[in-house]
C-alpha cells in the first residue's frame, strides 16, 4: 500500500528547545496510525508542522507525493489534510451546522459576491452544502443539535462535532489530536469504535495522537513513539507494548528496571 504521508528527518526547534528531532514517519494509505508519547514529547508540534501551522526547520513532509511543508495552512487543508484539536477548538459562537459549513469551505467554489444577487449557482451550492452538513451531523450522531451554538453542546458532542467539521472538507488524511482527552472509559471506548467506523466507512486515512496507550492499542495498525522529540520506537501495537524503551519513557527508568526485575523474578 502506498504511503499517503511521509515525513523525512523533520526537525523543529523553538529557540534552544528541540521540539521535534530528526523525526521520520510513514503513514500508509487507508490505515489508522498513531503517534504516542508522554506529555511534551512533540506530538502536537509534529501535527502543526504537517498542517503548515509551523514551518519545519529541517527535513521535508510529503503528502500524496507532493511536498507540503512550505505551504500555508489553508493550502495544506485544500490538498486534503484536516485536523481536530487536543483542547477542542470549535467556532464557539456559531451553530453546529455552521461549524460544519465552515469546514466545507475548500469545496465551495462560487464567487463570494454572487451571494448578493443570489445567483443560481450560489443557491444550489448553498443548498447542497447545508444538505451535506446535515448528513454529516447525522453521521456523527448529533442529529437535532444542529442549531445549537457549539459552545452550548456537551463535551462529547463537541468532540464529535469537531470531527464532523474536519470531515466536511472530505480530507484524504484526518489528524486527530487526542480525541479521547477528558473522556471516561465508557466514552473512550465509544470514541475508539467511532474512529474505526470512520476509517471503514469513509476510507479516510487516520493519524492519531494519544498519550493514553490503551486507546491506540486496540485500533492502530502502526504505532510510533515519540519522546523528547525523537522517535524511540515504531511498529505494531504488540511490539510497542513490550518495548522496554517505551515503558521507560512512560514510567521512568526506575519503573522500567523494576518491571524487568519482576519479570525476571517470575521466570
Amino acid at each position, binding site marked *: 500500500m502506498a504511503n499517503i504521508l511521509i515525513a523525512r528527518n523533520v526537525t523543529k526547534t523553538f529557540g534552544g528547545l528541540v521540539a521535534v528531532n530528526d523525526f521520520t514517519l510513514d503513514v500508509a494509505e487507508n490505515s489508522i496510525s498513531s503517534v504516542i508519547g508522554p506529555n511534551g514529547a512533540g506530538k502536537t508540534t509534529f501535527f502543526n508542522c504537517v498542517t503548515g501551522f509551523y514551518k519545519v526547520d529541517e527535513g521535508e513532509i510529503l503528502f500524496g507525493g507532493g511536498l507540503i511543508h512550505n505551504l500555508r495552512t489553508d493550502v495544506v487543508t485544500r490538498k486534503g489534510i484536516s485536523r481536530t484539536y487536543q483542547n477542542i477548538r470549535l*467556532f464557539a459562537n456559531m451553530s453546529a451546522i455552521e461549524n460544519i459549513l465552515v469546514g466545507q469551505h475548500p469545496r465551495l467554489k462560487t464567487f463570494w459576491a454572487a451571494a448578493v444577487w443570489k445567483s443560481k449557482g450560489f443557491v444550489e451550492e448553498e443548498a447542497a452544502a447545508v444538505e451535506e452538513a446535515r448528513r454529516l451531523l447525522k453521521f456523527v450522531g448529533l442529529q437535532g443539535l444542529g442549531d445549537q451554538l457549539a459552545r452550548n453542546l456537551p463535551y462529547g458532542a463537541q468532540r464529535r462535532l469537531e470531527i464532523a*467539521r474536519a470531515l466536511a472538507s472530505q480530507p484524504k488524511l484526518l489528524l486527530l489530536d487526542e480525541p479521547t482527552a477528558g473522556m471516561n472509559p465508557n466514552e473512550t471506548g465509544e470514541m475508539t469504535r467511532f474512529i474505526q467506523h470512520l476509517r471503514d466507512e469513509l476510507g479516510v486515512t487516520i493519524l492519531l495522537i494519544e498519550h493514553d496507550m490503551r486507546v491506540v492499542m486496540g485500533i492502530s495498525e502502526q504505532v510510533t513513539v515519540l519522546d523528547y522529540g525523537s522517535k524511540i520506537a515504531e511498529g505494531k501495537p504488540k511490539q510497542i507494548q513490550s518495548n522496554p524503551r517505551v515503558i521507560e519513557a512512560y514510567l521512568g527508568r526506575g519503573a522500567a528496571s523494576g518491571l524487568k526485575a519482576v519479570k525476571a523474578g517470575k521466570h
Partner: protein
Amino acid sequence: MKTIQWRTTLRYGLLGGVAALYFSAIGMVELFAGRNLVGTTINMGHILLYGGVVAAGFLAARSEAHARLPQRLVIGLVAGLVAAVPTIALVLLDSVWDMEAIFVSMNNPLIRLLTLGRGLPGLGMFLAVCGALGLAGGGYNSMPGEHKAAGARALALVLIVAIFSDLVTQVMSNLFGRGSLSLFFAGKALKPAVAIVLFVLMGAVFYFRAVRKARTPLDPEKVKVDKRTRLQRQVVQFVVVGIILLVAPQVLGSFLSQVLFEVGRFVLLGLGLNIVVGYAGLLDLGYVAFFAVGAYTMGLLTTATGLNMGGGVMNFWLALPVAVLISVLFGILLGFPVLSLRGDYLAIVTLGFGEIVRILALSDWLKPIMGGAQGVLFIPTPHIFGVTFDTPQKMYYLVVLGALLAAFVSIRLRDSRLGRQWMAMREDEDVAEAMGINLVQTKLLAFAIGAGFSGLGGAIFAARLGNVFPHSFNLLISLNALSLIIVGGMGSIPGVIVGAVALVGLPELLREFQEYRLLIYGILLIVMMLNRPEGFLPAEVFKRELHAEEGELAGTGD
C-alpha cells in the same frame, strides 16, 4: 425565618443616594429641572434626583428573596430614607459653608429644588419624599409579575412621550394641525390629566395583553405558521416599514429629518463597521478614515474648484460610485499592513491610520488639493430628473437608500460562505485557516466592503453639507460608530439601527442637555456592558437544520 440583611439595604440606599448627590453636585439636576415633563409637577430633574431612590428601594427589596410584603415595604422605606442622607448632608453643609465656591453648581436654584422651596425645614419633606419613593419601589417589587411589567411599560411610555415631546408634538401638529396640541401638552410638558389617562390606559392594555398571552398555551402546532402565511406577513411588514420610511420626512418636518439624516449616516457607518468588527472580529478604530476618503472624493470631484481643473469634473451620481470605489481601495491599502496584527495591536494601528488620514487632509503638503484646514467648499447639491436634493427631507431619502443597500448587501453576505468565513475568523483565526480559509483574502474583503459602506456615507455627507472639513473626521466618529454597534448588538443589523437611533438620534432630540451627552453616553455603555453585554438586539442564531426542511436555505434573505 431568615433575618433581613440590613447591610444590603444600606448599600443600595447609599448607592441611590450617591447617584442623587452626584447628579446634583455636577449641575445636571438643576439643568434638567428646567424641562417639565408632566404639568409643572414633574420635571426631568426629578427623574434624575429620585430615580436612584426608587431604584434603591426596588433593588433592596428584591435582594430579600424570602421577605413578605410588609418586610419588603420596610426595606424599601429604609433604603429610600438612607438614599436621602447624602443629599441632605450636602445641603446642610451648604447652609454652614457656601459650597458654591467649590461646586459651581451648588447654587440657590439647586438648593431650592432640593429643599422643595421651603428652606432648611424643607429637608424634612425631602426625606419624607425619598422615604415614600423607596417604599413605592419596595412595594412595586412585591407586585405580581403581570402588574409589574404592565406598570413599568406604561410608566416608561408616558415618560418617553413626555421626554421626546418635541418629536410627538411635531408629528401631531403635522398630522392633525397645531390646534390638537393644546389638548394634550402644556408647553413641552404633558398635561397631568393626559399623563394619568395615558398611564392607566396603556397599563390596562399591557396588562390584558400579558394576561391573554399567559392564558393561551403555547401550542407548537399552532405557533408554527406555514410558509405562505409567513411570506404574507413579511410582505406586510415590508410595506409598512416602506411607507413609514417614505412619509417620515413629510410628517416630521425639516429639523427632525435632519436628525433622521444623521441617524441614517451612522447606520451606514455602523453597517460597514459591523462587517469589520461584528462579523470579522477585526477591531478597527480608524474607521473614520474611509468616511473621510468618501467625503473628500465626492468633494474634490464635484466642486467647481476641485483638483484645480476648473469646473466640477463629475456630477454627484457619477462621483458617488467613484467615491465608494476609492474608499474600497483605501480599505484594501490600509488592510495590507495590518494583516498579521490581532486584537489590541490591530486596534492601535488602525487608530493611527484614522488620525493619519485626518492629519494628511489638514497638512500643508496636500493643501493645494485638499484645501488644508479650509477643506473643500461649494460642493453642489445633487439633482436628478429635475429634482434637486436641497432640503434635509430630500437628502434623507438618499441616505435611506444607501443604508437599505448596505443592509441588503450585509444580510446577503452574512448568510453566505463569505459571512461564515468572517465569523470563523472572528472566533478563531488559526482554526479558520486550518479549515482552508484564506485569511488574507477574507480580511481584505472585510476591510474593503466595510470601507465601501463608510465611503458611501461620507460621499452623501459631503453632498449634504456642501463642504468638507478635516475636523469633521475626528476619532469621535469612529468611537461613535463602534459604540453604536456594541450597544445595538455586535453582528446584528437591527442592532445597528437601534444603536444609531439610541446614540445618535436621541441626543439630537435632547440638545438642551448637550453638555452632559458624553456622561450619559458613558453611563449607558457601562450599564450595558455590565447587564447586557450582548447589546439591545443581539444577533440571532440562524436555524439551518430545522428550517432547511421548509425550503428556507439561505435564511430570511431580504
